[in-house]
């Protein structure tokens, strides 16, 4: 994975830049000791590491603005960072960059149940947003699987999803307003507690811009009352086609489950060996969860089970109590850990039209043989967001490269059948060089024009999202 060569002129000014930053920040908020900056050398994509020149940990929006003004003045690249859980390398630094971490900005600023909003500082973790309101019966819906650790700032940057977004939508659908610091150090408010911000939908384009447009320090989020209850069913099938057809039939029948999760045989076997959830040994397994009161849950499950029975399932298991529900989820929730027990793995994130599922799984199987690497599939079937897990050995020379080549083929396949490279993890550096598969030069140029508007010198997280060749002229113009 190529990254642009660091600018030695900037690195030469490190001491001066650190001193300038200390003028506007408390001493402890500026980190320059290489032993300490190392903590920021990578995110969840840990195969790639590079310590930043400096790291700063501001506590207020105003401090963020001062940092941006200084970095802008000296043309210092800035890499914003939430909790550093990105699986795409979204927070990977360059050696000449300042990491701007928002972790210390984690307060709740306002909770308003009448208007169903919470306003938080963006360093707050996803789960602790819900934590602040759950005693009163409310929750924040987007639930990426890293929700214990990941920050709202990163959720906004990557437009994060989760298992329950089939019903509740992704971050973008639950974000009503932001306070954002621009590269020039201006503080701007967009949207608020009302629905649909005025004017051009800047909020829509900021969400998912991977920290390239500005630094979001505060967010107004939509909150919902918790459902009365939820219950999953598990169904096993002896072919991927049938399981895929079952998903489609459930959706067509007008039932809208909160989650439809899919696992294939390699993944089922791995999780059984690891977690012993008692899953059937079959080709494909679905977990479908519905919400409501007991009677409402039963009404929906009866319809779902009816449909499932028409597809001759090898197993049909309805949770009778909380313990059984937990067991049904156990295997799915330990799937990544289970695969990790077997070997190192790379987790992909392409989305496909649901109807292409059987074909795509068959092709992934063929590619697995060609590359000589095992792959397990676990994914959000309701919306076609796949998570193929490719197993490789990080200690074996050449294996990572082979794994990346295999991953690239799978993502190209996703695009070929009408899908996309990434459904919820983001492009980062990981899928940057595949963007040409999905977009024409002009399409990419149109996106880069938005960055030009907000960040004319391309200082913010510049080596991400766009293929380096496409962004070269812009990155080096300043």
């Amino acid at each position, binding site marked *: 994975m190529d990254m642009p060569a660091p600018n030695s002129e900037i690195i030469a000014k490190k001491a001066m830049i650190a001193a300038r930053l200390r003028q506007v920040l408390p001493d402890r908020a500026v980190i320059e000791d290489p032993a300490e900056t190392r903590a920021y050398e990578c995110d969840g994509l840990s195969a790639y590491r590079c310590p930043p020149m400096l790291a700063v940990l501001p506590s207020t929006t105003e401090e963020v603005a001062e940092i941006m003004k200084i970095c802008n003045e000296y043309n210092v690249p800035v890499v914003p960072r939430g909790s550093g859980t990105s699986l795409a390398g979204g927070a990977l630094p360059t050696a000449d960059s300042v990491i701007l971490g928002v972790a210390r900005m984690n307060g709740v600023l306002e909770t308003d149940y009448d208007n*169903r909003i919470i306003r938080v500082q963006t360093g707050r973790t996803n789960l602790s947003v819900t934590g602040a309101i759950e005693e009163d019966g409310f929750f924040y819906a987007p639930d990426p699987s890293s929700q214990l650790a990941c920050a709202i700032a990163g959720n906004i940057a990557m437009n994060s999803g989760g298992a329950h977004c089939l019903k509740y939508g992704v971050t973008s659908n639950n974000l009503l307003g932001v306070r954002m610091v621009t590269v020039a150090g201006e503080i701007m408010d967009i949207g608020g507690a*009302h629905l649909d911000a*005025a004017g051009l939908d800047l909020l829509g384009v900021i969400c998912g811009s991977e920290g390239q447009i500005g630094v979001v320090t505060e967010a107004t989020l939509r909150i919902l009352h918790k459902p009365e209850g939820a219950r999953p069913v598990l169904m096993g099938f002896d072919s991927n086609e049938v399981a895929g057809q079952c998903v489609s039939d459930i959706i067509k029948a*007008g039932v809208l489950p909160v989650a439809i999760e899919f696992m294939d045989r390699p993944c089922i076997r791995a999780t059984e060996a690891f977690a012993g959830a008692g899953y059937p040994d079959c080709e494909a397994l679905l977990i479908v969860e519905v919400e409501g009161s007991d009677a409402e849950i039963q009404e929906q499950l009866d319809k779902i089970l009816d449909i499932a029975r028409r597809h001759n399932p090898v197993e049909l298991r309805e949770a009778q109590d909380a313990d059984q529900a937990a067991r049904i989820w156990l295997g799915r929730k330990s799937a990544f850990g289970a695969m990790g027990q077997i070997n190192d793995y790379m987790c992909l994130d392409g989305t496909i039209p649901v109807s292409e599922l059987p074909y795509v799984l068959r092709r992934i199987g063929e590619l697995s043989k060609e590359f000589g690497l095992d792959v397990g599939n676990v994914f959000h079937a309701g919306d076609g967001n796949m998570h193929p897990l490719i197993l490789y050995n990080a200690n074996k020379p050449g294996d990572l490269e082979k794994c990346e080549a295999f991953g690239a083929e799978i993502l190209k396949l996703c695009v070929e059948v009408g899908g996309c490279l990434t*459904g919820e993890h983001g492009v980062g550096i990981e899928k940057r060089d595949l963007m040409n598969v999905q977009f024409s030069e002009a399409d990419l140029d149109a996106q880069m024009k938005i960055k030009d508007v907000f960040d004319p010198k391309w200082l913010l997280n510049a080596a991400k999202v766009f293929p380096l060749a496409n962004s070269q002229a812009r990155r080096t113009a300043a």
Partner: protein
Amino acid sequence: MSDYNPTTEAEIADIIAQSQGPLAIQGGGTKGVTCPGKTISTQGLTGIVNYEPGALTMIAKAGTPLAEIEAVLDKEGQRLAFEPVDFGQVLGQQSDPTIGGVFAINNSGSRRFQSGAARDFLLGVRFVDGTGQILKNGGRVMKNVTGYDLVKLLCGSWGTLGVLTEVAFKTLPKSETQRSLVLHGLTSEQAVNAMTRCVGSPFEISGAVHLPFDPSGAKTVIRIEGFEGSVAYRVEQLQKLLSDYTQSQLDDAGSVAFWNDIRTLAPLDGHSQAIWKVSVKPTDGPAIMKSAGFTGGFMDWSGGLIWGTAAASTNPRDMGINGHATLIKGPTETISKFHPEAPLVAAYSNKIRQKFDPSGRLNQGLMA
């Protein structure tokens, strides 16, 4: 007939690239907007390109009539859950809206607070920018974070960034049945209190309006949709929650008819000089209903959306709104259609417009 009547995306690109001067984009022409210059119609770009009911997705050319799309969805038991408002009656337009027009203005109706806005359902766009370049963004799958989300940027840009030529969007199943609870005689404050309690309950409601000027007396109406058993259960729970108030009920047919009237803005007097649409947080709704100078109107989105009729001289923005007010019909020569933005936001928005339409030709003057 418009000045230009292209039937393909390539023709639109040619027209924009080879013509000079301002261009006014027309879909169904139902939004009551007139812009300077030659008119270019999208009505020749019609047809559903792809529809997969099992994936809840449809792709259609921008000029496809909304009515045609809704008929096709209806056959499969599906619908556009964001329930676009039908402006035809109040603006006195006879023609049919197009699907491109619906998304170009991010047209969302009563279900918006529960299901999301039009922009939340739009998955992908093809469009021609102000230089005649054909561009695409997004796709046809529900989860997609590949690159910047220009889909949302285009949605609600009123044609000022480009001419939409094709849209891909998410559909949802129609509900099996619906019912509405009607509360009688509430003040606006009481109504918003009742509506926000329902919205903030676990009993998922999909509509909450307050009609203070109803000829039969003030009416607050709550819609509940879903499977029969679930609807009956939630109606019962909500009745308990609202037991302080005098209630009646609308059955499935009655509820459908009532919400159709809301969708066509039937409670508004189409002869009034001005019609305003104000978006605020729900608890700000009553003050605006009372003090903005409206002569009629109603509150939707549990108080967060106010439709008001007014004299031409009334400007609800004068009272200071924490949100935004759009002039749907009225004296746009003297009062700007869109709510003036904070200078910094306006400056960045203008720069974006210059990138996509450098000579400012598309729907000139709108949103600027």
